[in-house]
């Protein structure tokens, strides 16, 4: 069953705790950023709007990074759909980073290898799949949730979630953003 994240931008206050929790739990050095919170501002004074999005690997149904990898270092796990990188196979060519539309793969300058969000499955520190991810556990406002896409969709919080879950996941990123009508063009999901 495909697992992924649900992200509620209305709750995110851009505190960046998720980034540091991710880094600390998975023992990631300064440099690669497996998760990053970005802010998008629109409008003109005084009618301004802003939206924060906490972005990590989308664990896509049809992961372009996996197709781009020349050494089959990237695989999609059968049971939970998590996209993982085998650091022993990775040659650090960066094709995955070019292929990914979300800038998820991060090249570690120190190791010369690609790394990215692995849904807290870092060897030796694997969080069982039914536990909250580090980013999710730490979030002060409950903006991030993880779980099976079916479960996230069943919460019925957003039409977007329903729509995405109804598809066969191929090509869809495993992230649901709780977008809202009032936020500019394209946000009406």
């Amino acid at each position: 069953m495909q697992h992924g994240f649900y992200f509620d931008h209305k709750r995110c206050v851009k505190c960046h705790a998720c980034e540091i929790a991710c880094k600390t739990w998975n023992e990631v050095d300064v440099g690669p950023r497996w998760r990053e919170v970005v802010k998008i501002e629109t409008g003109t004074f005084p009618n301004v709007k802003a939206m924060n999005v906490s972005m990590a690997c989308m664990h896509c149904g049809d992961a372009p990074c996996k197709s781009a990898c020349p050494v089959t270092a990237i695989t999609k796990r059968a049971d939970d759909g998590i996209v993982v990188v085998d650091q022993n196979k990775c040659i650090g060519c960066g094709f995955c980073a070019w292929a990914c539309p979300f800038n998820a793969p991060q090249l570690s300058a120190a190791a010369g290898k690609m790394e990215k969000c692995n849904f807290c499955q870092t060897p030796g520190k694997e969080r069982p799949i039914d536990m909250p991810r580090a980013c999710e556990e730490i979030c002060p406002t409950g903006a991030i949730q993880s779980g099976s896409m079916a479960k996230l969709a069943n919460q019925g919080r957003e039409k977007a979630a329903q729509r995405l879950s109804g598809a066969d996941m191929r090509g869809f990123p495993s992230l649901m953003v709780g977008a809202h009508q009032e936020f500019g063009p394209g946000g009406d999901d």
Partner: protein
Amino acid sequence: MNEMSKDLGTKLAEIKGAEVIKSFCYTCPWQCPTEVFVRDGRIVYQKGNPESPNNIGARCAKGMASWYVSQDPDRLTHPLLRTNPKGERGEFKQISWDEAFQFIADKLKHIADEWGPEAVALTCHHDPNTVFYHHLLKDLYGSPNMYAHTSGCEQDRRSACLTLFGHVFPMHDFANSKYVMLWGMNNLGANQGLWESRDLIEAQSKGCRLVVVDPSFTETAQKADEWVPIRPGTDGAMALAMCRVIIDDKLYDEEFVTKYCEGFNGFRDHLHEKGYTPAWAEEICGIEAETIARLAREFATSKPAMSAIFKGSGYYTNGHDAGRACYILDAICGEVDKPGNINLKDWAPLGSPVEIPEDAMSTLKKDPLHVAMGYPLAPDLPNSKLPDAVIKGDPYPVKGLFVHSTNPVMSDPNKDRVLEMFRHLELAVSCELYMSETSLECDIVLPETSFHEQAEIRQGMWLGPEVILCQPVVDRVGESKPPYEIVKGIAEKMGWGEHFPYEKWEDWGEVAMKDVPMSLDELKQQGFWAGPIEYNRVPKGLPTPSGKIEIYSTDYEKAGFNPYPDFVERSVIPDDEYPLQVTHSKLSMHCNIVTQNNPLLMEVCGENWVEINSADAAKYGIVDDSYVVVESPKDNITILAKVVEGLVPGCVSIRHGHGFGHWAMGSTAKGKGAHSNNLMDTHTNPVTGANCYNECKVRIRPAG
């Protein structure tokens, strides 16, 4: 408490192969209770203490990254004594603790003999362990001048709360509110009480309306249903005009103001006499009169409601009355200390860890500095007046200064003047983790343990009464010592060692906990003690002179100020030469001046910047993401500029102005970003003694 989340910590610790120790985080003053994961003597993870109502498992970026402090190679490891004259960049030699204690004791005796004990002052961040210094320097040595850092912080708010409600630090019961109006308060974006952040977001999801009055489109304004882009330093005018509408429309709570407020009728007449109307305020605030009137009616007819401030309405010479006016909105609508209002929280029955017997106590011979300086209502030292005492002996000489966990050389306005002050001191002692900019100016620098290496027991920053415990989780860095041991060492050299008899922290911990209905052992297991949340304390009487909410302030009258809040313009108004007003806002991933040496936080935000509205940017040729020179009549800085829509034209917003641009502290921090405090001249709030960081006008041009 959630059983599953309680269990989570144990499971996660198993995965990490770590031991879990209950503690709290002291990176920022909100001090969230934590679970610290320790493996092989190192912190490997931290999470919020899920049983604590204070943060229910969550952490912020600063707290998550705070393990780095316990391993930072830039930490001070030994006591250091200055070897070159004041006025030059400090050079130091390593000395023993015994030599350090003797040096300080000799100087303290000399100062007491020559100028009296009141010539020694202490300034600190709010740290419960500072109480040990108080026992030494106040109770035994006899100086009344034990101060903190509030004049650089929420001094105006604190003063307003004390005057109106007799409470020093009300909390916010966002969870039960239906209408929240925040004035210059960016609680979602600055240092965060995590439970407050969550409560506010939860309340909004249940239909609470959030209105943010702020010149800047802050992280909190971003979440608001309505952003009111007010001109800087005019909050008081808008709040007074709102009061007028509520009173004229008879939307106030008649029973509440009659029974529980002092001076309501006089206040009504005062508003009329002064002509404080929405039309009058429109001119001043740049907000349409209809909007002001509508917001007033919305506020008065939404229940429960809350009008709250933190720092932003202060930082001006009119900040004291702005704060009072914003809280009078709560008072006249009967919205004080009920569910969904500001909450006059109870404090836990935590005692002092050291008990000095009466006959050993020194008698205080002089008024404390703030009173002698002419600021009897100041809740903390007017920092900006301290240089006068040190340099000119006005109102009386100050010759010795202890600086504990604070960095006034960077945090106070007018750096030049603060530097000059340090050069005039007979004894400047820095108790610090790093060779900070202030340490560099001191005679002696004492390495303290960080909160990961020492114990503290203190009041929790939550709605109900709460005691929180921080315990040593890792070994000390170098020869660093916790405050208790430093104070004990100095006391022994002064002949007062008997009053500091404890061998280990648990000994004084037991003493501090004796009135708390929980043993120290239980506290070590649980990490906190929490009592019930209380409401409706107003009818029981408040600790104000009248026992009521003082719209008419007896304290103000006694001190010779107008008992009712007025609006007067701020002191520094932009002109043709310097056309832009300076404002400030903070950043969520940095706290004050302490986090800039943390590489994890610097990766998220490695420099500060100035924000400017696109219309002003076009006028002055400023391009987004480029470096600019910001110039005041006093100094100039080069800083990154961000061109934004979310800022009132005619001002700039310097984000985290005094936290960046370190020139002494830390290999990561040094040279990153720009330190803006020397742009400001010295301006002091006439009532509260607060530093007025926003009383500054500038011009701006592209750099290079």
